[in-house]
Every structure is written in structure tokens, then in C-alpha cells.
């Protein structure tokens, strides 16, 4: 079965329009030298044509609402409808960001309470909600570390230590903050190589960025020792919250000794991924970084909520957005946290770990190789397809593509880079045992196909709207905008 939906411009006819969406004609003059001369290429379609077109496009996607989506490191759990419904109440939607605080006390109360709840679950002293995605939260975190050292006149501290398993955003962020990146290896058991860490820390160390549980799907067992080593060298500890879901309500980054953390609210607190954003990357800090928090932050005094800005936090690293960040996403996270409550937080860690360890056990029993077979899985785990690639010529990507034919979204492939032919699988706590069993059965079935009919697996997928795409052609013969006359 193949679907194709025309590019919307192919549906366009001159003079057609969705009339009821237009305001009445008005008169206004733009001076000739500043005036647009020809109309932009926008579709001329009826309202029904637009509705049908974008509804059909939506049907070409896999999504959490339609498919199991075990994308490791992305925490693709159910996005409760209530979060969307209550964040989209008309009063919230129509509130202008610069309107007086007196007309936003209800909204600000939600934001203040969200800050407080995030402080509680992370064990940090203060929270700023303003970063608009995980990567911006990372930027804010490293910029605060930089500001801290500078304020002390400690200008030599220009190195950020990053384990090789880290997300690509960690080194990219460090570079954006004007830092040098020192990558350190991981030991064979998946933990950070402590000797390598000891060898790189020193008077140039600004800090270390750690994800714990790590991107290798295991808990960093020597975290207390790492904290001591970095502390002794005068560096700060940055917690990448990508995997906070695995320990929510169980262990807090603040108690592990981290100085700064970013949280991916679109992962742990179930705000939507939206086909690639909006994310939301709130940051939390220990006491010594409080003066540098990005602004604005919500304050509460004399029974009123208000924005704290440059006047309240003169040493802030500044503003990272036009207003206060992704407010509507934050409202969704707020609703989610209120529905879960404190008892629900811990269950997130418990059941996401139960699901991951169960799925790992099933897949091991089916003949797959775990990358770290001696370790407990966190809320995710890594399989390596090295053996299948060698014996049958079927690699991790082939498994991923073939899963689509079975109706499952692929796990994360080829990340972390240091595990060859890897699949990073994160089932999340909201999936049922039946769904996990179905996935394990599909994997077992593909494993069998890999032996009996490897060409079939290598040619997959067959049932999706398109088959494998020519990425080289895409990059060489750039076709980035539709042009009249093109098909």
C-alpha cells in the first residue's frame, strides 16, 4: 500500500480562497518604495482542501497515539489529552506576554508552583523555566558555569569534560559557550572511566557534563566519587536531564551533588514532541549558581506573583527568548505533574524501569545481544546487532526499518556512537505488557527473517508511504522549496 499526497501548491488554483477566514477589505497605503511588487507563493485552496490535505499528511506519520514508539533517549510516553485541553483554555491562549501581572495571576500561580515542584523532584535550590528546549537548557547551564568562574576571576577555567557516550548537544553546547571540549572514554562496564577523568581534571576544568543514568542505559555507580574528583579540581557538575525519567521520585540530581541541571519537560513531564518541538528545557541550580539564572523567573511576595528580571537578578546570564519561553508547554507540564502527584512521580521511575528490564529480558531470551549484559537496564537499554551484521549482513538500520512494517516505530539507531550496530530502546512506563510482548515477537520474527531471507529485511520497509529514501541525492541535488512547474 502506497500513499501519496500532492504538494499543496499542486492543489492551488488562482482566485480560489477560504473566504470566511479573511477580514473585510480595508484601505491602507504603503509608500511605493516600500511596497511588495508581486504576491508571495502561498496556496490558493478552499478550506476543505486545506483541511483534507493536512489531515491526510498527518495520517502518513507514526506517532505515540497510533504506534509503540520506543525511541531511546526520547521518552516517547503518552501525552495526556488533559494537559493539552487545560493549557488551551481561551484565557491562557489570549493572554499577551507583556500584559500587566495583575491580569496574569492565575497563569503566574501555575508557573510558580511548577518551579516549586521541579525544585522538589530535582533537589535543586532554584529553577528557571525560560529555556525553550533541552539544548537551550544546556546552553543556559554551561553559560551559568562560565559566569560563576568569571565572577570569581577564575578565567583559566575554559574546559568542559564530556564522556564519549554523551548526546551531541553536550559538546556542541560547550563550544557555543566558548569552551574547549575534553572527551573522556567509558569503561567496558558502561561507567565513566575514573582514571581518565582524574587525568583530565585540573586548573582549566570548568565542569563536567553527565547524563545519569547515562546514554548507555545504565546508572553511573561511582557518581559520588566523580563528584569528589571534579569538586576537588574546582569544577562544577552539570546534569543532563535527558534520562531523568528513569529515576524520578527515586534519586535527585541535587542529592548526587550536581550544581546545575536541565530537564527535558517534553520527555520526563510528557509535553508533546510535536514532530520535533516545541521542547522545554527548564534549568535548576544549586545555591552557588542562583545569581546567574536566566530571566525571567516567577517570584512570589505579599500574596502576589511577579516576574523577576534584570533588576532582581543583575548577574543573570540574560534572556534566552523574546518573552518567558514556551509558556504553553509549561502549562502542560504543570497539569501533568498535578495529575501524577508525588506518588505518581516515583511510579514513573518504577514502571519505566520495569518495562525496560522486562523487554530486555524478553529480547535476550529471543537471541539478541545486550551491549551491557551484566548491568541493570535503566529505563532504556542497548542491543548490539554486531553479530547479525557479521553473520547475515543485516545491520541495526535494517532491523529498524523492518520494524516499521510490523507497525512499530524504530528504536534510536547508531546512538551512542561508541556501541557498534546499536539499537537504543526505551519503552516508557505508559506501555502495556501486551504491547511489549508484541514488539519482542516482532523482533524475534525479524531475527528469523535475517537468517532465512536477509534481502527482505535489507529492503524494508515495504508498507510505509515511501520506501528507503536516497539521502545522498537529497544532499547533492538540493530540492528544498517547491517551484511552479515541478511535480
Amino acid at each position, binding site marked *: 500500500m502506497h500513499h501519496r499526497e500532492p504538494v499543496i501548491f499542486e492543489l492551488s488554483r488562482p482566485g480560489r480562497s477560504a473566504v470566511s477566514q479573511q477580514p473585510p477589505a480595508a484601505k491602507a497605503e504603503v509608500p511605493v518604495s516600500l511596497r511588495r511588487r508581486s504576491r508571495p507563493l502561498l496556496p490558493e485552496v478552499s478550506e476543505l482542501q486545506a483541511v483534507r490535505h493536512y*489531515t491526510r499528511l498527518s495520517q502518513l506519520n*507514526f506517532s505515540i497515539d497510533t504506534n509503540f514508539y520506543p525511541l531511546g533517549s526520547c521518552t516517547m510516553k503518552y501525552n495526556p489529552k488533559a494537559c493539552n485541553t487545560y493549557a488551551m483554555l481561551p*484565557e491562557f491562549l489570549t493572554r499577551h506576554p507583556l500584559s500587566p501581572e495583575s491580569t496574569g495571576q492565575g497563569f503566574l500561580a501555575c508557573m510558580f508552583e511548577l518551579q516549586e515542584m521541579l525544585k522538589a523532584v530535582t533537589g535543586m535550590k532554584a529553577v528557571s523555566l525560560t529555556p*525553550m528546549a533541552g539544548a537551550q537548557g544546556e546552553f543556559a547551564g554551561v553559560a551559568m558555569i562560565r559566569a560563576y568562574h568569571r565572577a570569581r576571576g577564575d578565567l583559566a577555567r575554559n574546559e568542559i569534560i564530556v564522556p564519549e557516550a554523551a548526546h551531541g548537544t553536550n559538546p556542541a553546547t560547550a563550544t557555543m559557550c566558548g569552551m574547549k571540549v575534553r572527551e573522556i572514554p567509558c569503561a567496558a562496564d558502561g561507567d565513566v572511566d575514573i582514571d581518565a577523568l582524574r587525568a583530565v581534571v585540573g586548573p582549566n576544568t570548568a565542569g563536567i557534563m553527565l547524563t545519569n543514568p547515562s546514554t548507555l542505559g545504565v546508572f553511573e555507580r561511582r557518581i559520588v566519587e566523580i563528584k569528589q574528583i571534579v569538586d576537588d579540581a574546582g569544577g562544577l557538575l552539570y546534569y543532563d536531564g535527558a534520562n531523568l525519567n528513569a529515576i524520578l521520585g527515586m534519586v535527585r540530581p541535587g542529592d548526587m551533588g550536581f550544581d546545575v541541571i536541565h530537564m527535558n519537560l517534553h520527555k520526563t513531564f510528557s509535553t508533546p514532541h510535536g514532530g520535533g518541538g516545541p521542547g522545554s528545557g527548564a534549568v535548576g541550580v544549586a545555591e552557588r549558581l542562583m545569581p546567574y539564572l536566566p530571566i525571567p523567573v516567577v517570584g512570589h511576595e505579599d500574596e502576589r506573583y511577579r516576574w523577576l528580571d534584570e533588576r532582581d537578578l543583575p548577574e543573570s546570564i540574560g534572556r534566552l527568548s523574546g518573552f518567558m519561553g514556551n509558556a504553553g508547554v509549561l502549562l502542560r507540564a504543570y497539569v501533568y505533574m498535578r495529575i501524577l502527584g508525588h506518588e505518581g512521580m516515583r511510579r514513573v521511575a518504577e514502571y519505566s524501569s*520495569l518495562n525496560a528490564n522486562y523487554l530486555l529480558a524478553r529480547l535476550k531470551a529471543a537471541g539478541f545481544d545486550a551491549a551491557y549484559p551484566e*548491568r541493570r537496564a535503566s529505563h532504556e537499554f542497548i542491543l548490539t546487532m554486531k553479530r547479525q551484521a557479521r553473520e547475515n549482513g543485516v545491520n541495526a538500520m535494517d532491523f529498524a526499518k523492518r520494524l516499521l512494517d510490523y507497525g512499530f516505530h*524504530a528504536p534510536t539507531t547508531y546512538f551512542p556512537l561508541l556501541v557498534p550496530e546499536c539499537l537504543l530502546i526505551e519503552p516508557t512506563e505508559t506501555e502495556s505488557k501486551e504491547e511489549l510482548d508484541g514488539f519482542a515477537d516482532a523482533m524475534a520474527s525479524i531475527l528469523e527473517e535475517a537468517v532465512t531471507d536477509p534481502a527482505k529485511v535489507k529492503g524494508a520497509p515495504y508498507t510505509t508511504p515511501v520506501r*528507503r529514501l536516497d539521502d545522498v541525492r537529497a544532499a547533492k541535488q538540493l530540492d528544498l522549496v517547491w517551484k511552479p512547474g515541478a511535480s
Partner: protein
Amino acid sequence: MAYIPHTEEDVRAMLEAIGAPDIEALFDEIPAGLKIASLPGVPPALSEMEVGRLMFRRAAQDGRPLNFIGAGAYEHHIPAPVWAITTRGEIYSAYTPYQAEASQGTLQAIYEYQTMMASLTGMEVSNASLYDGASGLAEACLMAVRANRRSKASRILVPRTVNPTYRRCAEAIAGTQGLVFEDLPYDPATGCTVMDALQPFEGQDITAVVLQQPNFFGQLEDVDAVADWARAQGALLIAVVNPTSLAVLKPPGEWGERGADIACGEGQPLGVPLSSGGPYFGFLTTRMEHVRQMPGRIVGRTLDLDGRSGFTLTLQAREQHIRRGKATSNICTNQGLLMTAATIYMALLGPQGLERVATACMARSAELVDALSAQDGVSRAFDGPRFHEAVLVLDRPVQPVLAALAAEGIVGGYDLGREYPELGHALLVCATETRTREDIDLYAAALGRTLRRAAA
């Protein structure tokens, strides 16, 4: 248990398969001393009904005052289909389209968006969107430093008529990489950038010049003159534009002899609700020659194994998950959901509809300025053509006036006092197509009353 489907029997069977006595055992690699027993600070769970009641109450507390603020976020009519479709689970709950075969809907929508934004701004290529307009300017400045290879200075000229928050945001994000931002003054009569102010920079190494149209005051800048000056200096021109206005205003690609090099701005006016400041999206478009310096996701059309056309993320060699420390930016997401809303918005409005929105904005704004400046104690700050905002000067401090208006359910404008003290008691006001004659009369009458009351 909220959103967790497990029965007791499931848990028993799963633990048995794992070979663990209980769930607690799954955490046995975590040092015991780090574990917490409870979570003070997070209230007990609520049912959906209870949370609903709370949220309705909070929303009602804020109400829906009549809004006359723009200053970077604009109230427009949002066609009903926009969010009805955008919140479909297939769009709302999908992830970044790494698996292209399973994400053709998202990818094709981005391709259509890129086409619309490139054409609207008069440029050749667009990325798949950035976080918002302010951070988008920061990315545009960093991009200009990469793209302008002749310049060694990392020096960016920023007129004071550029949204001051954009300027601060660019400093916060790009300042850590050594970019230097320098002010250009404005003409107190027209509220536009003074060409003479550029003269001292002639012959110097300038990486890029930023120009906002319409500018932060709502005034229309002489874009051709600034574009040509930048060109002559070997500086790139970064245009910050309002997408609605581009239905009637000359697009950045046509500014001056050769056009701007990078166009960016806040996409919120295109179907995204005000929502207290976000989520919005930033757009960024450029010429083909700079495409490899562009930050963010880009989608291209290509062929599949069977020779049929399809869409995929492309030029990923620029990005953090491939290049790590050497990436063009640390960005991994676009604002997919908002960009989708904007694409549907532009499809529903079409070229004629967007033009009508832009014209209506100008007409309503002109009516507003006439009605307000007819009140005693109110005057206009600047002459010259405008889009849908204007600066008014009051004969007394702005804050108490705004507070009095707010008490009558009117959000009367944005106080420019902190950013532009030299303008006196200056107030930035806006009217879009959503403000009716009645709304404007209501505001004018309330303002008149407030000013008379205070004078008495």
C-alpha cells in the same frame, strides 16, 4: 495509577521474566544513600476532573482583557482548522522525523513551510524553524559570522529600533562566542535608523548589519538605503521582519540592489496564539549560497528505492548529532508543532487573505492612533509611514495610566520608559485586524476618562 496500565498479574509475570524479586531490586545499582523515601514539595495526585476545576479557576482569574499590545507578539484571528488539525495525535505526539519513512506527513509539511517562508521573505531557502524570533536573531548573527568569510571582526551593528529584547537575547546567546554588538541611533523625528550614523563605520570591518522592518516602534525603515550601504561595506544584511507585514511590504530578498542575506523573525503572527509568550517559532531564510551555514533542521525532496518522490532531513552534516563540538549550532529541535500551525494558517489565508489581514492591521492601527491622539495629553512620537504599531507620548507617567486601564479590562500598550527613557512617557500601542471600531472607541473613551480623572 495515572497512565500506567500494569495489573498486579502483569507485574508478577514481568518480574519473573527478569528474575527480580520486586521492582525495588531493579534499582540495586544505585547507591542506597542517594535514594529518597518521599517527595515533599509535590502535592498529592488529582483526578482529571479536579485538575480541570483548578485550571478553569486559574484561567477565569486572568479573564480576557481587551488587548492593545504588540511589541513582538500579535493578536490575530486564528482559523478554526489550524489547531483542530495541529493537535491531532499524529502530529502532536510524533517525534523529530529521523525515520523518514514513518514521518512523511511531518516532512512534507516542513517542505511546504520552507517553500512558503522562502517566498514570503523573497529568499531562496528556509530552515524548518527555530525556537522564536529573539533567539532566531542570535542564530542569524552567528550564521553571519560563519558566512561572511572576508570579515574577521565578528562585529554586528544593531539599530536601536530593533526590538531591545532581541538585542539582549542575541548578546546572551552569541556573546559567549565573542560577537560584539554595537548600537546605531534613530532619528527622533521619524523613529527610523539614521543613515548618517553609519558613516563613522565606513571602511571598517563590519560582519553584519541588522535591520528590523517594521521596526520596534512600528515605523517603516528605508530598507533599500541600509541594504545598499551594508553591501558596499562588505557586511551581510540581516533582516528582522514581521511575516504578516510581508504580504504588503517589500520582502527582504528585494531590499536594495541585491537584497538581504538572511531574513529572520517571529513566526507567531501566523496562526500561533499569544499564550503568555510561547511556544512560538522563529523563521530563518537565506540565499542558496549560504545554505550550509544555516542552523536548524532542513528538509529536502528526493526519491525512494522505487523512484517515487519523498521527503527527508538533509544537510545533516551541519548538525550536533553528527558534528558534535563542530556543529553550526547545538539546536536539535525546530518548533515543529507551531511551524505546522503556521503552514496551515498560510494555506488557509492564501496570498489574498494575508494581504487583507495586513491591510486591515494598518487601517485599524491608523484608526487607533487617531482616536487616542485626539485625547488631551496624548501625542504621537514620530512622523512617517507605519505598519500596525505606533509610539504615543503621554503628558504623565505611563504605569499608573496602564494600571487604571487594566482595572477597566483594557491592556493599553507597552511602556517604553525603561528601554527608551529619552522618549519621555512613551507608550507603544498596536491594533490588528481583530480590533473593531467599537474596541477602539472603548479604549479611547477609557483613556480620556483616566487622563481627566488624574488631572482633576
